[in-house]
């Protein structure tokens, strides 16, 4: 009986933290009267163990949403393309802008924004949307917001495929700065997840929150430099406030690495040289702010989520 865990007096309403093995392996668990199942580290391990679930849930969602063939891909592109066209026409007509590269500016920030929007809004509905899973099967619920973010990433990836076509037509050539793309995508992934975790908890609790957040996020989009560039602002204070917006770092950075050139005009794009608002280069410095904020939100959000997920089965 030496390996038997030592008997301790039961302490009600407070999780014991020492002596007893909490998780010997993934299938052997000691669940206590805690707000969480096991330690954070074990939880991460278990998530890794069940990571296949993300691919399956996302794949299933995508497959049933659009049959995966050529027509399905076209559907994915239809929305950002039509929106970009609408904004382009609107802005080109209203402001009499002559530069056609503008459609690329709009398209790239729209794709990035769609990803963010989808991660947040879908995460709010994800627990209720997977109600039959959550009430009947145990798995780390933290995989659900990841799934929604990954579905958004898939859309984003497909959306990015049409950007080269536009670049070709507009005569914007690629540059080595494109190697920054994975970095920016990673930063946005962290930021999206950081926003998705608390929203998943609150979206389940407050039923009308998705509607409210839908409006707030749309407003946020117009306040972010998505349809216009940060270089349009000459006032330092306004610029600084704009840079505090975590979406600014993302939109500006995507734009820069796709080399919507102006400061460094290339031979491939002589027209761009006459457009002062575009610039090219490494990601915008405020991307670091987005990263810091994203990491902070993700840590706090994931911790909050794992504490609240124990009640999901009852709250649905």
């Amino acid at each position: 009986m030496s390996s038997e865990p030592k008997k301790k007096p039961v302490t009600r309403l407070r999780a014991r933290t020492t002596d007893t093995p909490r998780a010997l392996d993934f299938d052997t668990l000691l669940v206590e009267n805690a707000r969480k199942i096991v330690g954070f580290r074990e939880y991460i391990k278990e998530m890794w163990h069940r990571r296949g679930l993300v691919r399956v849930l996302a794949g299933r969602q995508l497959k049933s949403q659009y049959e995966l063939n050529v027509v399905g891909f076209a559907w994915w592109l239809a929305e950002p393309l039509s929106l970009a066209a609408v904004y382009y026409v609107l802005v080109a007509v209203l402001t009499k802008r002559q530069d056609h590269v503008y459609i690329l500016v709009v398209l790239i920030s729209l794709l990035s924004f769609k990803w963010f929007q989808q991660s947040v809004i879908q995460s709010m509905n994800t627990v209720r949307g997977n109600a039959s899973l959550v009430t009947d099967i145990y798995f780390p619920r933290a995989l659900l917001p990841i799934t929604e973010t990954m579905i958004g990433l898939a859309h984003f990836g497909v959306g990015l495929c049409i950007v080269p076509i536009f670049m070709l037509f507009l005569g914007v050539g690629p540059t080595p700065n494109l190697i920054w793309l994975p970095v920016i995508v990673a930063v946005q992934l962290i930021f999206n997840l950081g926003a998705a975790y608390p929203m998943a908890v609150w979206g389940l609790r407050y039923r009308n929150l998705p509607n409210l957040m839908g409006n707030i996020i749309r407003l946020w989009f117009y306040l972010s430099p998505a349809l216009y560039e940060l270089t349009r602002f000459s006032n330092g204070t306004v610029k600084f406030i704009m840079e505090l917006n975590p979406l600014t770092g993302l939109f500006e950075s995507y734009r820069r690495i796709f080399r919507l050139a102006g400061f460094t005009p290339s031979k491939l794009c002589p027209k761009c040289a006459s457009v002062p608002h575009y610039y090219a280069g490494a990601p915008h410095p405020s991307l670091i702010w987005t990263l810091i904020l994203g990491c902070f939100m993700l840590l706090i959000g994931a911790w909050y989520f794992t504490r609240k997920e124990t009640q999901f089965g009852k709250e649905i």
Partner: protein
Amino acid sequence: MSARYPAIRAKDLGIKFYLRGAENPTVHSGMVRFLKRKPARREFWAVRNITVDIPQGQVFGIIGANGSGKSTLLRALARIYFPDEGELEIRGKISSLITLGAGFRQELSGMDNIYYNGIILGLTKQEIERKRQQIIDFADLGQFIHEPVRTYSSGMRARLGFSVAVHVDPEILVVDEVLVVGDAAFRQRCAEKMRELFMRGATVIMVQHNMDVIVEMCQRVMWLDKGHVQTIGEPLDVVNKYLASRNLPVLEAKPATPNPGVISGG
């Protein structure tokens, strides 16, 4: 080491729910409540003070009236509800059969759903590939396996769900009244498959309203009453006490029952 430990050990386990009335929580009602500092909800303990050890390899039955907390307890043992009080120890790979075909996607084919459901229940891709034919044969849906699940009858859906779930080969299986699906032939196959699981030493915890099934299959039975344990013990004893308390005719010990422990117990 595993043989010495019970598969499941619950100590003073309690699960509570919150009663909110008919109110649907919304953003504004949440704010109003916050400003008025009004308590949002009343507590309701669905099960409380559950202390039980279930050894490995035992078939454990839970009986009780509707609303006595059977399903809540079952979900707690399957890790879906977390203990609000007390503690719970689970040793072994656990699989729950609470609703058959949980997480089926209506618009995908039965074949696709086997794959998705298998992963959701914790199988790996390779295991599914290996067991796919067995699962298809067990469900016995013929050509309909390639049709979308939304076209299935409820019986067909349940058969497919059960077929996937039992092929997970769990060490602990938690079953909520799902054996009542399908026709006689399928029920026979289910019973055989369950027996195969017992033989392999799996622990089974089941909720049943059919007392004959309980007496036939279980080695120990818990009677839950209003969320508390009324009795734990020999199946026939407990079942008859339960039936007597509800003024129902008690069961006779059947000489033909395959479980000799039951006869001596009765």
